[in-house]
Every structure is written in structure tokens, then in C-alpha cells.
């Protein structure tokens, strides 16, 4: 749980369409100073009198603190639902109610390591900021991005520059290697002698990565995407079973105990069932 969450009226600074997504910049003041890769924000959508009562959660793509209370947060938004479509229709100068930074951040190693960053669709968003930090610590950073088609790969030029190698996979073969990110993972881990995997994307992809990470004995931090109602830890809807250090499985909230969690600790195969002996958070 972040200790610095703020609720602000953030001004839309820019909104650009990039492939299937929108790259949006918001003026958020001092919130930017506390935002780390992995953190997310929750935004009210629909405007006054809307029938959409819940916030939408978005991983922070990049945060820049200009000091003296000036700061910006950048998001990559896929307009696939009513709420995200409303958000991507905002123009420069519009105000949105934004809460953040929320959730846990990716853990940064103190030693230079060999990191593999894996993103699915717009799940690549938080990985570029992470990559810059890892590079700053002297890490080698390789990246794999996967999506259903080329349009849904989010990899801006400056992002590409921040990694040592970039592998792309698409389900339809319209860009890079045809197939899933998990198809190319084992080879990349071996060839680049990877120490740690950071991932962000749909649950099925994170589960598949965990399996490979466990087999290859590589650490795996993943940012999970579970449907949320509040984003701040009070609604108990975004839970998933995670095994604690004490061996007890608890239904933890992906908004405050995550979104970044240790992939190996997640009980992935619990779809629509709770493992026996599980506790509340």
C-alpha cells in the first residue's frame, strides 16, 4: 500500500493516438514525485451524473516530477470499454478526478542483474519506466512484448532505446514472431542468463510466465490485472489467493498488496474456486 495516495483534479495535458491506444499526459502536481513503476492510478469516468459509478485503474506508464509541486503522469489507455472510451475522448485542458499513486511497485535490485521484462498488450506501459531505472542501476534489460496483432503492441521509440534487446510476438503473426510471449521465454532466459523477470499483462500470460520462471529457477515479479471497484483497498473485489511466508494462503487485494506480487506465491489455478484453508486478507 502506498502511503502517499492523493486525490487530485488533474488536467489533461495531451492525448495522442498511438496504434490501438491513447498516450495521455496528466498534470498531477506532487503525486508524480511518489509514483514508481508498477504503481497505478484510479480515474473517475463519465462526468457529472454518469451511470458509471466506479473508477477505472491504469498502470502508470511514466511519471516525471518537475519539483515545486509540478509533476506529470503518463498513461497508455486502451479504449475498449465505455469508461476508457470516455477517458480517451478528453481534450487538452479537461479535468479528471484522479487518485494515485496506488499499489505496490516493482522491486529494484541493489546489484546489477540481468532482467527480462515481459509485457502483454498495453501491459507493456509500466515496463519502460522500469527499464530506465534498471539501466540506471547497471542492469542488462531485455524485453518481450506480445499482443494479438501489431496494432496492439505498445513500444514507443524512446522505450525501444531503453532496452538491450526487444522481441515481439503476435498471435496473428502481423509483427515479430507468430505466437505467444511464453513461446520465446525459455530461450531468452537461457541465452541472456536472466536473473529476474518483471511482467505485466493478462492473468493467463502471467500464469504461463510463472510456470516457466519456476522451471528455470528465475525470480518473477508480476503486475496483476484483476477487476477493481475502488483501487484503494476497501471493496474486496480485486482479490486473489497468495501464499504468505507463514504458508497460509490469503485472499489478498491486488490494489494494495499488489499489483506487483511474487508470481510464485500466487495460486493461479483457482479460477472460480477458493483453495481449501484460505483466509481473508
Amino acid at each position: 500500500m502506498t502511503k502517499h495516495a492523493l486525490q487530485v483534479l488533474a488536467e489533461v495535458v495531451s492525448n495522442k493516438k498511438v496504434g490501438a491506444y491513447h498516450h495521455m499526459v496528466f498534470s498531477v502536481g506532487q503525486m508524480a514525485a511518489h509514483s514508481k513503476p508498477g504503481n497505478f492510478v484510479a480515474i473517475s469516468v463519465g462526468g457529472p451524473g454518469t451511470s458509471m459509478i466506479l473508477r477505472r485503474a491504469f498502470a502508470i506508464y511514466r511519471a516525471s516530477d518537475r519539483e515545486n509541486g509540478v509533476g506529470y503522469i503518463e498513461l497508455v489507455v486502451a479504449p475498449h470499454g465505455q469508461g476508457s472510451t470516455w477517458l480517451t475522448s478528453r481534450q487538452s485542458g479537461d479535468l479528471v478526478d484522479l487518485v494515485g499513486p496506488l499499489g505496490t511497485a516493482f522491486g529494484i535490485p541493489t546489484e546489477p542483474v540481468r532482467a527480462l521484462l515481459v509485457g502483454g498488450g498495453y501491459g507493456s506501459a509500466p515496463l519502460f519506466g522500469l527499464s530506465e531505472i534498471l539501466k540506471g542501476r547497471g542492469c542488462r534489460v531485455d524485453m518481450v512484448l506480445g499482443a494479438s496483432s501489431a496494432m496492439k503492441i505498445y513500444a514507443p521509440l524512446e522505450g525501444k532505446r531503453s532496452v538491450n534487446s526487444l522481441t515481439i510476438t503476435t498471435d496473428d503473426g502481423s509483427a515479430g514472431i507468430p505466437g505467444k510471449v511464453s513461446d520465446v521465454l525459455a530461450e531468452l532466459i537461457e541465452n541472456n542468463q536472466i536473473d529476474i523477470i518483471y511482467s505485466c499483462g493478462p492473468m493467463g500470460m502471467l500464469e504461463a510466465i510463472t510456470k516457466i520462471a519456476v522451471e528455470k529457477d528465475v525470480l518473477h515479479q508480476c503486475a496483476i490485472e484483476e477487476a477493481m471497484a475502488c483501487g484503494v483497498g476497501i471493496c474486496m473485489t480485486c482479490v486473489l489467493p497468495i501464499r504468505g511466508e507463514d504458508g497460509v494462503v490469503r485472499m489478498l487485494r491486488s490494489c494494495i498488496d499488489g499489483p506487483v506480487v511474487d508470481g510464485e506465491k500466487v495460486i493461479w489455478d483457482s479460477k472460480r474456486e477458493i483453495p481449501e484453508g484460505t483466509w481473508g486478507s
Partner: protein
Amino acid sequence: MSFDYTTSLGTAKFENPIFTASGCASSGKELSQFFDLRELGALVTKSIMIKPRSGRATPRMAETASGMLNSIGLQGPGIDIFLEKDIPWLQEQGVSTVVSIAGESVDDYGILARKMRSVNGVKALEVNISCPNVENRGMVFACNPVTARAAIEAVRRNIGGELPIIAKLSPDVTNIVEIAEEVVAAGADALALINTVLGMVIDTNTMRPKLAGKTGGLSGPAIRPVAVRAIYQVHAALPHVSILGMGGVTNGREALELILAGASAVSIGTANFGNPTATMLVKSELQELLIAKGFNSLQEAVGYAHRAESQ
């Protein structure tokens, strides 16, 4: 003359009438980063059960038009951990606290009440007898006058004389006044109206119920008219029993509706999810509205919609 915003539920007194709704503010910590919890009339904790409880599998939530459906299944740490960790924290912070309890059997309610009787710094006990999400669908106490009464009697017998009991009722009944009369006769000092309304969403892609628990509780602005109706009916029948009203309130005007219907205090539930400072917004807007309408106290406005045509 200064405006009197204080209120009471049974013998419990509160500085102002804006509470959180149980299950919509956890045990307070998470919201404390957004505002000072001491500004609340009371924080109503999530409903606590005897044992640690995982709750239901996901998906647990579906957004609906002006509402949401949830099926959490009363996830929680259990009463012992709650009393060891959450209550001391709320006491240290000086938060006016109402504890909500929920049981799966009449005995559970008795056991929970016994555990609560020696706890200091709690203003009142909300007894959740109406959660439609628990595993045993046949045992929704609040939907049957006999079982509703039995649960409240078990609490009354075990709680001792001091702590006021607020019975939280379900709107999913044919005659809510009948249930209200039964639980008041069983020893409830006040009533909480309303819990969520049982509903279902079917995902038209998978063509199955969207929630893992299939059914869920509908909350949010979509159910506000149901809450106003239930409060109005119960206040008309039992004008001397104070009501903690809730159901889709997001602003001061909507809170005023519940007050006029007969609520002495208003809980904010689902609105906290969309706006973590919703309680503070409602608190200031409601007070401004009451003053603007010429009321000298909150109390004057409670049940004002029931006045005779000539008034």
C-alpha cells in the same frame, strides 16, 4: 443560532449523521490517507464473523447502470484478529466506531455478542442479519421474521445492557415493517436500512452469470428509491425507533432524501469506491442544505416528509 448536527441511534450519540456503510470502508485504515476519520459520525466496520474467512472466488463484482453487483462472501480476518488489530488502531486514532457482526447460526450471533461486550470504545453494534452472499442461501436471517428475531435475541441476551444494537435489514422481503417490528421486539435499539438488493448479471459473451457466486448484492444509486421507500415505511410504523439509512447516497441532496424519509443518520457505501472522500462531501453538503431549508437541527428534518398536508 448555531445549527445542531448531532444525532443518536438508541442511546449512542454521534457528532454528525454521516457514517460509512459496513463492507465499504474495511476497518478504516485505507480511507484514513484521504481524510481524518474523526470527521465521521461513525465508521461502521466490515461485518466480522467468528473465523477468518476467505470469501468467494472472483469475479466478485460487476458494474451495472448506476450501481454495482458484489459477491464478496464476507471476507475477513475473524473476530479475534479483528479485536487484536483493527479495534485498537481505531481507538488510538479516536475514531467513533460501530462494529458490524455477521453470523452463520443463531449461536454465532451469541458468541460474537459475548466477545464484543467487554470491548471498550465501541459506540454501537450493527448486527448484519441480511447479507445475501453467505454460502448458505437458505439461511438469510433477515428474510424471515422468526429467524431475524432469533438472531437479534441471541445478541441481546449476550451483549449486556450497555451497547446499543442496530439490526441491519434486507429489502428482499415482502413486508419489511413486519421484520422491523420483530427485531425491535427482540431488543434491537435501532435499525439499519437497507442492505443490498439481490441481483444477477449474465455475461453475454460467456453466456453465464458474470459473478463466480452467480448472484450478488446490488448497491449504488440504482437502489436509492428502494432505500427511501423502506425507510419511509418503517419510520411510519415505528416512529420512535431510530434508523441508520443507506442506499446509493453520493451527495448531500440524496442524503437529505433519506433523512426526510425518517433516517437519523446516513451511511455512505458504494460511493466510497468511486470517491474516497464521498463521506466528507455528503457531510458538508447535507449540513448546508439543512441550513438553507431553515432547519435549526438535523433532528427537525428527520421524517419531515411524513408531516401532515397542512404543515
